[in-house]
């Protein structure tokens, strides 16, 4: 890994505040960000990401690489859970394997925006339409996860409410975070198309404030991630390896696909970060509802306690290094 990339990533306010949160837990400081404040920041970030993405999608249109990239992203979110499922089945039952696999097929919006901030600090260009890929990668992975359960689970799951297609689609598309992200994307698109003044007036809220709110939220994420460590230990070494190796593998696959697609460096990094990151918003909520047999502590502690910090701190610069090697810079 390129040390200077690593340092540039680590010495940015979002990552530093993330550390501050981790260290608070390690040193047993009583710093806490009480509920529902994390929810406020989480809602805000989704709304702002979606809105900005919609604006940029409107200006880029659907020509060029947009459709291929988004299609490839959706395919990745279908394929990745299958790979993960096969690996996880070595150690876990169908329920846990499917739930964890779904989480890794889906994405983490905060990892994505940290990568965006990283690119900005490097002055590397990326496109707004990548947010569309982000928004469309959440649901397919959930669907794959639920199908895996449907196929793999014992025929008469006791008490199971007999998962129906309707409810699977409902859980995957109408989960609060997915819905807000997609909805804001559409609103941003419509506003940009019909109401340019509206775009300008939203800018201080969705644009200017974003970086600071991201820092605040990452402070909380640091606390939350560090608090997952004890249950991570309980989860065992197989999961710990999984939570670090799988993002690396997925990121690598992502960069290869990005190269095939002909994405430039910035978009390629974002694409690989989408592949590498794992969901801790939409997927856990959907799995808790539809696969209560799976242990929440497994899919939460791996995604939030390990994969998320790994990606934020070390992953992003590693993936950038990969991109640098595999995809030639335009300049």
């Amino acid at each position, binding site marked *: 890994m390129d040390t200077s990339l690593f340092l540039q990533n680590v010495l940015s306010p979002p990552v530093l505040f993330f550390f501050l949160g981790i260290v608070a837990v390690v040193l047993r400081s009583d710093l806490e960000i009480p509920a529902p404040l994390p929810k406020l920041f989480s809602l805000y970030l989704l709304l702002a990401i979606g809105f900005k993405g919609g604006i940029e999608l409107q200006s880029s249109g659907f020509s060029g690489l947009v459709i291929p990239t988004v299609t490839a992203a959706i395919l990745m979110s279908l394929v990745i859970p299958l790979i993960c499922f096969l690996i996880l089945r070595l150690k876990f039952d169908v329920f846990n394997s499917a739930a964890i696999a779904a989480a890794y097929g889906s994405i983490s919006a905060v990892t994505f925006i940290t990568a965006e901030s990283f690119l900005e600090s490097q002055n590397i260009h990326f496109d707004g339409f990548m947010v569309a890929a982000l928004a469309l990668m959440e649901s397919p992975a959930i669907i794959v996860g639920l199908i895996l359960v449907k196929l793999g689970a014992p025929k008469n799951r*006791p008490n199971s409410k007999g998962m129906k297609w309707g409810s699977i689609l409902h859980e995957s598309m109408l989960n609060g975070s997915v819905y807000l992200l997609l909805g804001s994307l559409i609103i941003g698109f419509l506003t940009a198309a019909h109401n340019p003044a509206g775009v300008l007036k939203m800018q201080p809220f969705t644009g200017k404030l974003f970086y600071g709110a991201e820092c605040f939220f990452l402070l909380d994420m640091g606390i939350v991630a560090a608090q997952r460590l004890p249950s991570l230990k309980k989860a065992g070494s197989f999961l710990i390896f999984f939570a670090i190796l799988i993002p690396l593998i997925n990121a690598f696959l992502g960069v290869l696909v990005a190269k095939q697609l002909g994405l430039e460096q910035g978009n390629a990094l974002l694409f690989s970060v989408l592949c590498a990151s794992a969901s801790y918003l939409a997927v856990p909520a959907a799995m808790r509802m539809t696969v209560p047999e799976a242990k929440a502590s497994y899919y939460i502690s791996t995604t939030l306690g390990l994969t998320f910090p790994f990606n934020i701190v070390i992953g992003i610069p590693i993936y950038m290094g990969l991109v640098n090697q595999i995809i030639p810079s335009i300049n």
Partner: protein
Amino acid sequence: MKRLDLIFSERELDAILSCLEKAEVPGYTVMKHATGRGPERIVTEDMEFTGLGANAHVIVFCEKEILAKVKEDIQSILSYYGGVAYVSEAISLW
């Protein structure tokens, strides 16, 4: 009069309240944002924002007969998703 205490994940709140309504309880009270630990799961405040939700604590004051009516429905939900249900005696203040 009986007092029923139900504690379970917020995500099942609507289902549980439907059971109570179906049994025509005279009323109920819901306290959300409870956390806790049961035999298998641990529910913490810091996970609320992820959509996993915290626990809900539902209190119902009702006659013994109504308890019999809700019993089965509630048991089927709580035994699948987790949660506890306890009954104690209570009398109206007046």
